[in-house]
Structure formats: C-alpha cells, structure tokens
C-alpha cells in the first residue's frame, strides 16, 4: 500500500500563503503562550514550525494584573495576565535579536488602548529586521469609547485595521475576539478595511469563584478562557468566518493534537495557532505538522489547502439521499 502510494503521490505540500507571507507549514505558536520564543529553547524546535507569534507588545512596558492570574477549569484555563509585556523598545532591543536566528516566520502581536497606540507601535515594527507580519489583538479596551473592546464593535475594529495598514507595509492579521453575537459582522468589516488575514479566536470571557476563600479566583474577577474546552466554539466561528470573507483565516482555540488542527483546516482555516497546549507540553506544536503530513499521505491529499471541506456537501449534509421527514427544518440547535 505504502509502496503504491509513493508511486502515485508526491510528498504532501504543507506550505501556505497568508496574504503576501509564505509559511513553510500552517502551524504557528499563539501569542501569550510562547513568551518571546527563547523560553522554549531546547524544548521545542521552532524551526519545524510555520511561525511564532510573540507575546502582545504595547507601546510602553506593562506590569500586568495582580495575582492570582490563573485558574484551571474543566479542560480549560482562565487567565488574567493583563497583557504584561516588556514594551516595544525593549522588545526590539532585547528580544528580537534572538528571534532573528530562528528559521521560522516571526509575527509580532500588538495591542493598544487607542487607535493611535496601535498605529504608533505598528510604525516601530515596520522597519524591524526579521519581523514578517503583525497580528493585531483587538480584544483590548478602547479607552476613548469607555473601555468597550475594539473587537466587539465592527466600526472600531475597522478603524484599527485601517490605521495599522496605513502605517506599515507588513502583512496585517487582525485577531478577533469571540465575545460577540455575530463574529462574521466584525470579520467582514475588518476584511473590507484591508486586513491581509484574520485570526480567531482570542479567549472567551469567563470567571471562577474560590468557594474556600469566598472570593473570585482571579484578582481581576474576570479572565480569558482558553484550552480544549473552547475548541467547539472556536471551530464554529472559524467555519462561519471562512464562509464570510475572502481573505485567509487562521484558526485558534483549544488545539492540542494534529487531529484538532485538521478539524480547523477542514473548516477552511489556512493555518492554525497553538496556545494553551504549549503551556501544558512545550513540545506540542512540533508534532502537529508531522501529524498533518501523515494524514495527508494516508488520504492522498497533495496540498494542505485541499483539506478544506467542500461547502455545498457539508452545509447541507446529504446523509439522507431520499429522506423526507415531515416538518423537518434544520435547526440552529
């Protein structure tokens, strides 16, 4: 069988394009779960990945939120790090040099509390050697608009997109928050505003209470939920956004195995990011391109983009060739 397969198929091609950016494979490390890369030295071979997205960077260093910042939940993790980071100056000076030596695409995640802050930091990254793209975290509070997250307001999201696109020549990926009624509305706005790609999802807003001490388990009360628990929600949103926009979509949320990644690629994501799973086992991401390749070989799939399920068949799953059930409208639930 294997012999026969080798004769008819070439080795699968895992490389993909995210706008103008070519990645050797569709597996990236998600922002906030891989530090600035160097922390993984010796535990994960970054060269095997499509890319690394470093911890969200702001214009000035941020101390982050008071502890406790973490609480484990069933198959999930709540965090309220508060976007602690070293700031753009220190990033460029202290972190970037090490990252330049890694043979994978470096993407910098940025954040701000105003459109101007996003622009300013994008400008500083524009000329930085080694930086291949910018991922824009729009889950941050829009201080001018009373603290509502940029990402929950399609207009505000589009404004950030336009501002960042204007100040940089780098490919711009807009990272969406899932805490919205209709994610396709934000996605469409961001796409028309010129984003090169969309990544989703960021964490879902959650909380936990410590019944022993009788107070919220996080000092910040609310935190962001990530990990396997959120995978079904993330996959649904990726499926929706893929069908709503024409730009590449990067899937994120609870991916911890090659099979999880394959679900997102089948939903139509061009690439995936691995977050919490790296915290649980630092080497997780390394196995994912290998697992995808194995699946493609076993199923004679040549290009990674061919994993995507055809829309027609799946949106109206033809499981009943001739199956009229009285009054059987498909339900959203």
């Amino acid at each position, binding site marked *: 069988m294997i012999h026969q397969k080798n004769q008819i198929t070439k080795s699968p091609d895992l490389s993909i394009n995210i706008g103008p950016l070519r990645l050797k494979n569709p597996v990236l490390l998600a922002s906030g779960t891989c530090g600035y890369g160097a922390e993984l030295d010796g535990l994960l071979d970054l060269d095997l990945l499509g890319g690394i997205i470093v911890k969200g960077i702001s214009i000035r260093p941020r101390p*982050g939120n008071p502890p406790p910042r*973490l609480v484990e939940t069933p198959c999930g993790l709540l965090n309220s790090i508060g976007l602690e980071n070293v700031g753009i100056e220190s990033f460029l000076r202290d972190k970037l040099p090490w990252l330049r030596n890694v043979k994978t695409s470096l993407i910098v995640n940025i954040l701000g509390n105003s459109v101007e802050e996003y622009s300013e930091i994008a400008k500083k990254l524009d000329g930085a050697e080694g930086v291949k793209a910018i991922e824009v975290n729009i889950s941050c509070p829009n201080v001018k608009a009373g603290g509502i997250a940029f990402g929950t307001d399609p207009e505000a999201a589009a404004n950030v997109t336009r501002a960042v696109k204007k100040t940089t020549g780098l490919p711009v990926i807009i990272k969406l928050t899932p805490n919205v009624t209709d994610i396709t509305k934000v996605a469409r706005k961001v796409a028309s505003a010129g984003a090169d790609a969309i990544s989703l999802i960021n964490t879902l807003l959650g909380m936990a209470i410590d019944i022993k001490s009788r107070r919220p388990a996080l000092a910040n009360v609310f935190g962001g939920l990530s990990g396997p628990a959120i995978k079904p929600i993330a996959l649904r949103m990726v499926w929706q956004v893929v069908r709503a926009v024409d730009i590449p979509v990067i899937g994120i949320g609870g991916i911890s195995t090659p099979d999880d990644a394959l679900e997102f690629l089948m939903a139509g994501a061009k690439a995936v990011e691995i977050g919490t799973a790296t915290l649980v086992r630092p080497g997780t991401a390394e196995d994912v391109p290998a697992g995808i390749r194995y699946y493609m070989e076993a199923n004679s799939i040549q290009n990674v983009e061919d994993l995507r399920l055809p829309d027609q068949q799946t949106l109206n799953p033809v499981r009943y060739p001739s199956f009229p059930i009285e009054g059987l409208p498909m339900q959203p639930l």
Partner: protein
Amino acid sequence: MPKFDTPARIVEQTQLTHGIFLLTVKATAIQDSANPGQFCMLEVKYNNSRDPLLRRPLSIYKTRANGQISFLYKEVGKGTRLLSKRRPGEIVRVLGPLGQGFRLIDDRPQCILVGGGLGIAPLLLLAERIKQSGKLIILIGAGNASEIPTIEDFSGLTRYFHVATEDGSLGQRGMVTDLLAQTLQEITGMAQIYTCGPWPMMKAVYHMARRKNIPCQVSLEATMACGIGLCLGCAVPRSDSHGFLHVCQEGPVFDADQVHWEYNQ
C-alpha cells in the same frame, strides 16, 4: 540551563502518612542537572484525558546518582489525588529542572534552614549541599508530627537540628519561628537564612531576619500553567512596587526583600 521534558518511569510511590506521599521516578537527564531549590512540572492527567489540564509544580526533594528523583507531596486536590493513584512501572511526564534554586553565599559559613510543613521539600538538597561546606542549622515546624514524616532525612545531617510542632507531638511545642528566635539569640558571626513554608511563616521569618540584618532567601509558590516563563501567570508583587516577580523563571527562590510581603495571598 538545559531543561528536559521526559516521560519518566515511576520507581516508587509510597504513602508516608495520611495524605503525604513520596514519589520516585527515573529521569536521568533531569537528575543530572538539578540544583537545590529547583522544581519540576508533573503531568497528572491520566492517559489521554485532558482534565485536569495543567501539570503540577513539585520541588525536587531528593536525587540519587542512578538517575532517580523523588518528590515529597501532599494530596490537596484533584491533581495531587490523581498523581497519588499512579503506580510503579507507569509513566508520568516530567519537565525539569526548572527555575532558580538557592544561592550559596561564600562568606556565610552559618546557614539556617527554616522549613514549615511540606515547605521542607526544597530544603533537603540544599541541606546536603551546605553540609559539605559550612555550619548547618535546621529548624522545622509543623502542626503535628504526621505532617513531616520524612524528618529523619534531615535530622542526621547536622547536630544543630530542632523541631517544633503546634501540638507538641514532636520536638518543642510551638512554632518554627520560636525556634528561629532562640537560634538568632544564640548565634554570632555571619549567617544566611533559607526558608520555605506557608506565606505567613515566611513573612515572619523574613521580618526576624531583617531585624538581625541577616540575608534571607525564600522559596515561593504561585499557581503555574507552564513553569518555564511562557504564560507570565506566576506573578508575585515586587517589594519596589514596580511590577511582578515571576516565580517559575526568576524564582522560585528569591531574596526575601525583593518580595512584597503585604501582598494578601
């Protein structure tokens, strides 16, 4: 410093007293490079289950030249309960050695180790190391004797060894800080304190040390997700009010005056 994430075979799992276990695994690479005060992240989930999701941090209690590492741990919740069910021959994933351990200070010939309850776990390797070079004073406290079942591992290392229990079931009745107060009155010359235990105990030890101008190193705990500096979750406020210490990377051992002790855990 090299770190390793290895599947480790369980060599021994012993329940010492109610709820306290000694786990020994074979993890040669980790054992080879482990220093006193360092810790490991142990996988507690069973087989391919994903709950509990995170690994649990445990201090390296003992190492043996044959590649074995031991952990001394207490069953406090879900993760440690699952870990305690694992049997010899089974495999657990262990990531280590992690963090910055205790620093030996050359001009401090007298070292005072102050351990509270299972806070003794990171102190054994340190005690063994100090024993080779200087005067070793070990002070251990606990609620009762059953909370410190491995006390013999320490008592043989030095003749300056004292225990206090709150119920008097072992050693002097009282707190380990009583022992420290006595010790601080008796000693002369340069000294260094190393401590690990509950936060209020460490805070008290720090303040006593400060009054006597003795430097003090503390081993802190924090909830951890990664143990290697990826998530920034293990923050503890700095004494200078400029942000946070990160227990897994800059610690778990810190100079006590770096820590914001008013932080209400």
